[in-house]
């Protein structure tokens, strides 16, 4: 019986327009969803459970609005849903120490998370959490198989590497050739009734503070050409103007 944890985060829908008002992003009008890679983490956690038996707990750190992604995870098939109540934005150190304490308390054998969250794009949480727990980790997994230990395929220079990963471990998940399952009606009904286990913890201070948000610097308008023959001119400009070839 394995105790498997999956980390899920609520982020703006990737189609959403991000606006900065004043010097902060304004997400009030933005639709929020589970971060895309976390869907692969949930799928991998469920496959792990199916292979060896056990239970899957989904954890998020966020405010009550984030309950929605936990319910989404429940609808797909996780057993338990936990929210660590926090409405502040945390630096990696603060976030990981909270997660490490909760994962230790739950006594997990494996933790799955997304390779990076769609808001931060960082990819820090998986490896950082593993280091704090003293566990093995693999980032950007494209395939996992389950047994006494995990076998994980991940990109490596010149191709892919197949790694033996002793448990406990943290694996951050890329898409690979995975198909994620969709919730069925029963799952959705169960998720509606499910209760989120809300936990409050002491939030450590962050040493990285946000000074400002801004829009990306506008790119100067490029040169534009009509017709395929212009490709010859563009090739010359790439050499003589841009110096990139």
């Amino acid at each position: 019986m394995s105790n498997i944890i999956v980390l899920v985060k609520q982020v703006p829908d990737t189609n959403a327009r991000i606006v900065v008002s004043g010097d902060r992003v304004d997400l009030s009008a933005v639709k929020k969803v589970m971060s895309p890679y976390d869907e692969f983490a949930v799928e991998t956690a469920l496959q792990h459970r199916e292979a060896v038996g056990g239970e899957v707990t989904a954890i998020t750190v966020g405010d009550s609005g984030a309950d929605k992604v936990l319910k989404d995870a429940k609808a797909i098939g996780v057993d338990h849903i936990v929210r660590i109540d926090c409405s502040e934005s945390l630096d990696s150190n603060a976030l990981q120490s909270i997660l490490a304490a909760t994962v230790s308390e739950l006594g997990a054998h494996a933790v799955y998370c997304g390779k990076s969250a769609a808001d931060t794009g960082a990819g820090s949480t998986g490896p950082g959490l593993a280091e704090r727990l003293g566990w093995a980790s693999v980032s950007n997994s494209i395939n996992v198989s389950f047994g006494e230990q995990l076998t994980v395929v991940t990109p490596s220079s010149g191709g892919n590497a197949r790694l033996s990963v002793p448990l406990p471990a943290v694996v951050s998940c890329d898409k690979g050739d995975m198909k994620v399952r969709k919730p069925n009606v029963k799952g959705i009904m169960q998720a509606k009734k499910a209760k989120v286990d809300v936990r409050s913890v002491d939030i450590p201070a962050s040493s990285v503070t946000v000074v400002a948000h801004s829009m990306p610097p506008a790119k100067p308008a490029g040169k534009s050409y009509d017709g395929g023959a212009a490709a010859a001119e563009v090739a010359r400009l790439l050499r003589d103007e841009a110096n990139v070839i």
Partner: protein
Amino acid sequence: MTETVVIAETVKGTVHPSTAELITAAQSLGSQPVVVVPCTDASAAEIAAGFVGSARVVAAKSSVFEHYDAAGWASAIDAVAPAGILVASATPQSKDLAARIAARREISVVQDVTQIEGGNLTSPIYSGKAMQTVALSGDAVVTIRPNVFEAAPTGGNSEVSIVDTTGNMATAVQEFMARASSRLDVAEANIIVSGGRGMGSPDNFVHLEKIADTLGAAVGASRAAVDTWDEIPHSMQVGQTGKTVNPNLYIAVGISGAIQHLAGMRSSKYIVAINKDADAPIFQHADYGIVATWEEALPVLESTLSSMMN
């Protein structure tokens, strides 16, 4: 002044030239950096010693550095890297390593920095749809996007010390599976030629491959191409749910420029777009836009490039 440490970017045992960009970034955060070179053979540190602007070079020598393992590398580097702000490259492997070293030191990590001003760090958030500027209080590990900062000049001669180190590997390699083609992966390439649904069929990617081979480039794809055609593997996908790339040159062919595709490539230094639809959003991000079908434009591009390269 804040002490800074550069963790050299290494590829197959040699120091990657982008390490020179890390030296520039480190200097703008504090002192002249100590450059730590993870290596199995200390001669690898010679390239790092040639970059002007470092205080000294530490060849961190260990058999651990033969294959990448996050736990093993982080412990072996942590043991020899001085305290301060650590600077590494924002490549997938080094971002992983940076997060691990930061956690080991119980400090924070700031990934994908594209600008440093007055000690504040700016990086893209929401897949490049906005930027975030942060201030640090205390030490941190910082990763720097390749191809953004100017490279420190070469021709220097920094002092090199060789330090043996060791770490505990947590994972073991069962097997390396080399790519079938010798072409670079999009994550490793400085030039990428990508095709989208507009290529019409996977067979037409051969035209992109020809150009890629002329330029020593990688071939990438949009998600529509990957999802539509089995022959185009997900490993080629650039974007939100594919790879984030920062090449010097990105050539997008038959790609509309959806927000999720832009998420993966908009920070490329130069972008060329070839699309038959003048209103395709990709043109708003292109340095050089060609409104034409690929059938018209690619043969011209290919023959011009191959005569230029010879």
